[in-house]
């Protein structure tokens, strides 16, 4: 090998590296990062894109160079040199990718941990009873009980557990350890390590159904079709689905979690940028899957509080009428955002043969669920 070719190789290497680093920083492919951990995911992506760009440029560079430089002359029918392979080279291009992907794995693991992925299951969060956020929330409890109503197994379990002694004996059955209702708890994105062990500052329950999200705010009677969260607060979303799979996705938070019927799961994050972001169902859920999206509004605490207040007033006004089942289903389908849960559920309740009296009866059961 002569010196000029070494120099050109070196130059090509430097240019390739520079382009990769430049593109890794300036790709402009991701939307704004609006949650506390989004930036770390973006950095991870930048790093992978830098490496990826380098590899792609190397491979396509070799392909283009070969296509030009090693093109056969039309009258040349001889073969190329008999190079059959070389173990040191094989080791080299086994070892380098292996080191790269192991590096990416370690880095990903690290980001995943900061995101809260490794946060151990916190049973106090999921474990029913007084401090379970779901139990404290009339809105979602009604929803939960409605679903339970349709499930004879759950019904029987509940009636058996009315007896305090049985209840105490059965304290430890696996389902009850994990979930307030039947089914299992899905692993999820939990608290980031510095928040681990501390309860979230705000708990919201989200339920996916064809084709809307319903958000209930424990401690209030609010049921909303869009998600409001206060800025810079550590928020926990309890997720489940009523009918088929759905997935909760906010691209600006870089977070996604499937909502699985029969399972409870949760997702925890801290929004850091005020604004309105799309909240999208990312799991095929039927014909209107593409229309199943709403917004998440990240706003300062005061704005959030006054929004919640206005929702409470609105829900109190409409409740009685709704429980009587006088709201037309079409209206409900039209805009779940403005309805209370009873309003929303009224037609379903009607279909199930549940009347207002029964619904009322259900209310005191909430604390047992």
């Amino acid at each position: 090998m002569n010196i000029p070719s070494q120099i050109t190789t070196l130059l090509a290497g430097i240019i390739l590296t520079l382009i990769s680093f430049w593109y890794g920083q300036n790709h402009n492919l991701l939307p704004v990062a609006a949650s506390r951990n989004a930036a770390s995911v973006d950095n991870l992506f930048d790093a992978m894109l830098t490496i990826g760009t380098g590899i792609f440029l190397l491979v396509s560079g070799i392909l283009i160079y070969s296509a030009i430089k090693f093109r056969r002359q039309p009258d040349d029918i001889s073969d190329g040199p008999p190079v059959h392979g070389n173990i040191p080279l094989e080791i080299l291009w086994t070892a380098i990718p292996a080191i790269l992907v192991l590096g990416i794995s370690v880095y990903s693991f690290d980001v995943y941990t900061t995101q809260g992925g490794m946060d151990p299951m916190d049973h106090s969060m999921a474990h029913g009873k007084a401090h379970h956020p779901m139990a404290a929330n009339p809105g979602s409890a009604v929803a939960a009980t409605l679903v339970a109503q349709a499930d004879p197994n759950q019904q029987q379990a509940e009636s058996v557990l009315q007896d305090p002694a049985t209840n105490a004996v059965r304290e430890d059955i696996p389902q009850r350890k994990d979930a307030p209702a039947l089914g299992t708890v899905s692993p999820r994105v939990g608290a980031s390590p510095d928040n681990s062990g501390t309860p979230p500052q705000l708990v919201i329950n989200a339920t996916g159904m064809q084709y809307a999200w319903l958000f209930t705010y424990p401690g209030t009677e609010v049921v909303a079709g869009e998600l409001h969260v206060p800025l810079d607060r550590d928020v926990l979303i309890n997720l489940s689905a009523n009918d088929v799979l759905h997935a909760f996705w906010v691209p600006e938070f870089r977070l996604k979690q499937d909502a699985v019927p029969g399972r409870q799961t949760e997702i925890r994050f801290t929004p850091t940028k005020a604004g309105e972001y799309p909240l999208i169902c990312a799991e095929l859920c039927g014909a209107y899957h593409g229309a199943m999206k709403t917004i998440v509004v990240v706003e300062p605490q005061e704005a959030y509080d006054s929004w919640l207040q206005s929702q409470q007033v609105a829900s109190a006004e409409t409740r009685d009428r709704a429980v009587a089942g006088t709201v037309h289903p079409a209206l409900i389908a039209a805009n779940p955002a403005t309805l209370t849960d009873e309003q929303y559920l009224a037609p379903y309740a009607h279909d199930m043969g549940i009347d207002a009296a029964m619904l009322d009866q259900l209310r005191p059961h909430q604390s047992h669920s």
Partner: protein
Amino acid sequence: MTQAAQIQEKGNQLAHGNKPGNWKEYFTFSTDHKVIGIQYLVTTFVFYLIGGVLATLVRTELATPESDFVSREVYNGLFTVHATVMIFLWIVPAATGGFGNYLIPLMIGARDMAFPRLNALAFWIIPPTGLMLMSSFLVGAPGAGWTSYPPLSLVSGKAGEMIWILSILLLGTSSILAAVNFIVTIFRMRVPGMGLNQMPLFCWAMLATSFLALIATPVLAGAMILLSFDLLIGTAFFNPTGGGDPVVYQHLFWFYSHPAVYIMILPIFGMISEIVSVHARKPIFGYKAIAYSSIAICGLGLIVWAHHMFTSGTPPWLRMFFMITTMVISVPTGIKIFSWLATLWGGKLDMSSALLFGMGFICLFVIGGISGVMTASVPFDIHVHDTYFIVAHLHYVLFGGSVFGLYGGFYHWFPKITGRMMNETWGKVHFWLTFIGFNLAFMPMHKLGMEGMNRRIAEYDPKFATLNLVCTIGAYLLAVSTLPFIVNATWSWVRGKPAGDNPWRALTLEWMTTSPPPVENFEVDPVLVTGPYDYGMGSRAKDVDVPFSEADDPALSAGPSSTLRAKPDPVVAANPSDRGTESHNRD
């Protein structure tokens, strides 16, 4: 100077068959592996066109943000059937059934497959099943995606869903039958003198593929049967209303369907190894490394499935486990890529259409591989899962990978299959149209997905309109790009320039008989006078210019004495230095 190809041909004069085949056979229940191979290739190509029409309809709907072209239900049916056709009626049967059947017996010097009637049966399952799947549009096509996750698949149209389940069961059966046949054929029917380490790399790839199909497909069949019970008689294996768990279905499904992506790509890897080496006039670089990396991929491919389920509630330690196995599987894949590049390096590239598609494959597959490593990273996958980023990734591997490879295979083996050459100019037009159309259609999808466009939607946010329009234009260009190929192939089959036996001067045994080969392929057993990749053998003494190499040490040598090389049969080897060692597969 004598060339390797001349040496190999001279050594096989006796084996050379003479009577070409009869085309009327192609329409009968023939048990000849070549007829069956061609039946597979033509049938699956027709299904590819059907799948392409469905894709074009999908893209037409997506040309504008509103759902304005077909109803939303029909849209879901279109992409579900599109994906099912492309996977189960095109790539899998074309690569394994088509090229596998045609080439494996020829490459190992056998007269036919081990079980010819089973082979015909495996093929004849496919056309009626394909028609049945198409007929689902009459009763409401299945609309739960090709993954068919319950509970949605249980509530969105029984008839269509049941047709889908039956099709998968039948096509799975066909694939299992073919796999058994390949394994037995490769182990039992190699010509004397051909050890496993002397087989062409396509045979190694088909061996790995067949093991995957054999291990994984029964699990899919099990899942399908349980799903049909849930659907028809109301059991609750996967239905949460009765206490079932939909996530269990996902595990069963992906236990097959991840290996399935390797079933779709491994045979293509094998074909690329043949194409690159022949058209670069150089031995394949690191024969054994490529062969064994296929086996490594086969093994690892069975333990990565849950990377499709990072957001569906997989425990953290499992997510980490599957992240790492998925990352590791990119290493043997990388070995292949670098080996192909090293094969091209310093060769004498003829830049024929076959090689163009081969090089196009390497370029595009690398992009799909890089986005694959990205999605293996759990935190990033949580963001892009179920978005257009995934649609982009899967098309870079399946279209940029498998389909480009299949086209390369068509150009490379067409002369053997038909006895005539394809037109090179139109081949190049075809390549560039496909390459440009493909990148236009799928490159922008990476950005769409990351910015927030989820997949499987008939309507989308207007802010994504421009890029989607670009994708749709690319898809139309792709649709047009198949025309030069169809015309070229049909015309060349009838009128093309006669090819002769070995137009590419290749060394593997399929080129040692007439084109098209006669029934039973060879007059007497062919022999490995040279190794399958001994290009450049005429100028043996030439010192090769490779870093770290030492000519005499087999472990370090880069030349003919390298341990990585596939050697000729020592009994008949043309070169004296290859004689005298142990001959494999002879008793």
